[in-house]
């Protein structure tokens, strides 16, 4: 205990002191955004022009976050981001690559309804 403490000082003391003189490991997040890999799985982006209304994305979604809704007479996927688990199975299932990944991840909101992405709007602005 106290005796052993003195007889064999921990290797921690050097390391801790050295950190006073080095820069902290903290990123400056809200002020400096982190660099994300290109294929980061952020908010899925849906391109309505490529969609063939097959509904495969909705069928394969494990979280049932994609609902096919009627838009201008055609069935289009509607993303519920509050349920989405960002697995990108929909992007993989899509035969026409209409669903793509984005690096947008700051999706926090105080209004839950803003998390439902209607097919018309492809990119949501930050809440």
């Amino acid at each position, binding site marked *: 205990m106290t005796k052993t403490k003195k007889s064999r000082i921990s290797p921690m003391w050097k390391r801790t002191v050295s950190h006073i003189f080095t820069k902290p490991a903290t990123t400056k997040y809200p002020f400096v955004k982190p660099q994300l890999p290109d294929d*980061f799985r952020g908010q899925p982006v849906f391109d309505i022009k490529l969609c063939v209304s097959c509904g495969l994305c909705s069928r394969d979604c494990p979280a049932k976050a994609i609902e096919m809704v009627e838009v201008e007479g055609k069935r289009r996927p509607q993303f519920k981001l509050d349920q989405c688990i960002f697995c990108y199975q929909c992007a993989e299932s899509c035969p026409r690559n209409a669903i793509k990944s984005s690096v947008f991840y700051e999706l926090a909101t105080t209004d839950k309804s803003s998390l439902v992405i209607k097919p018309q709007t492809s990119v949501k602005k930050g809440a």
Partner: protein
Amino acid sequence: MRRQNQTPNSNIDIINVIETKLKDKVQIQLGQLGKAAIVTSNGLHRDVLKAMVEADEKTAIIAITGLDLGANLGVLYHIRTSNAFLTIRAEVPKDNPKIQTVIDIIPGAVFHELEVSDLLGVVFEGNRLPGHFVLSEYWPEGVYPLRKDVKASEIKLNPPPPEEEKQPEYGKIVKIIIGPQHPALLEPEKFAVTVDGETVTKVEPRIGYVHRGIEKAAESRTYLQDVYLIERICGICNTIHACNFVEGVEKILKTEVPPRAKYLRVIALELNRLHSHLLTLGHAGLEIGYETLFQYFWRDREPIMDLIELTSGNRVYASLMTVGGVRRDLKDTDLPKIKTTLEDLRKKLPFYRQIYRDEPSIKARMQKVGVLKREDALKLCVVGPVARGSGVDIDVRKDEPYEAYGEIPFKEIVYTEGDTWARMNVRMNEVEESINIIEYAIDHLPTGPFRVKAPRVVPAGEAVNRVEAPRGELFCYIKSNGTAFPERVKVRTPTYANIPAFLKTAIGENIADVPPNFVSLDPCFSCTDR
């Protein structure tokens, strides 16, 4: 003695033993569900188990699977011996689902039996619990969620009982309740610890707070969706869960995974193990009030998280595994970054090793705490670093190599002390082994396809699969009925097997030793409850 290598008595032919002892009474189906499936009836499963325990000290129950077979309920005992993996089949009629317990033969079976009895209604005579084990205390009597005729939407819970007025007890403490909301546990789970002064006399667990019914939910989703669902059993060791499941499905499909995919899986799994071990080593620091150590470990864990993000697109859920390979190839341009990051981590390891081995306050808090002797470890069927910290050399990566582990050289870390300190040091050394494995895998990465097409509909059949998760041996049983939906998925997670060890070692300890002892199991309740 550190890193003592014990040669397993691997030449016992366990099937021969069973054949000679119970010749005509049981039916042995070779090659099914592991090395062989032994079909028993009329309580003969106890005799088989007895014969196996007498012949091989390393006999352990890995899991008990309950099956709804229509008129009957099936009970599968999955047994691991020192060199084989076997399954004992038993059946009970649904209207009188009684079977004799095996906890007197193998005490480690206690949790497995209770789970089957709670979820499927099989009555294990001699091992009963008043109230529910996994399910909510308001769960209606006589409804067993894993039976096929029970629909999730139709279940109505009992109303909570009226409030009881509690008499305040001033200054008198009998029970400390750890959890469900408690800083020592990141997850909700309850342990009622009875203390006498500061000494623990009894620990009563109440698990099931994270029970999400994944096994049932898997039956209503396709195999494709199940990969993502099963992956979300646990957020820390997610890759290995997904890998375990897809391997099981591949066994039924008889799909051969391309070699590049095997190596890519190993890289993903070992990155996962790295981050999981670093997390636990840091978390243990938090539990013993060593915040500086916690901060350092988690700081050095971040580069690993970045690597996972780089290779998979998400910091936590890699979602890499899919039936027939991996979903994403590793870009050649990323390889140098992985290597430099791992090299940086390797340079930091000696400092941490020294801390965990020699730091006096760590030794004061961890040595001789939660001692689990080798015999107890065998009896309680513990797995993973807990077993390896008690001198039991089991590691599925060595015993039954899966993916590319058979081709990659690595050391199996075994400590014999059996205390918290030994378990943490097992993890400490495994971090280094993981780095070696990843570097070897990157250097020997084969070229070729990383994925083969796999059909969505799986032919009828069943399979068991075992892998080594960061917390120990992970087991799954998959039964398919020839459609795109599985008939039954059973996952037995390592923490589930390790909790009995905690319940045993905590008795007689100081209350302050409970958190470090507990965290040395690397408990993960989302795994435990599923």
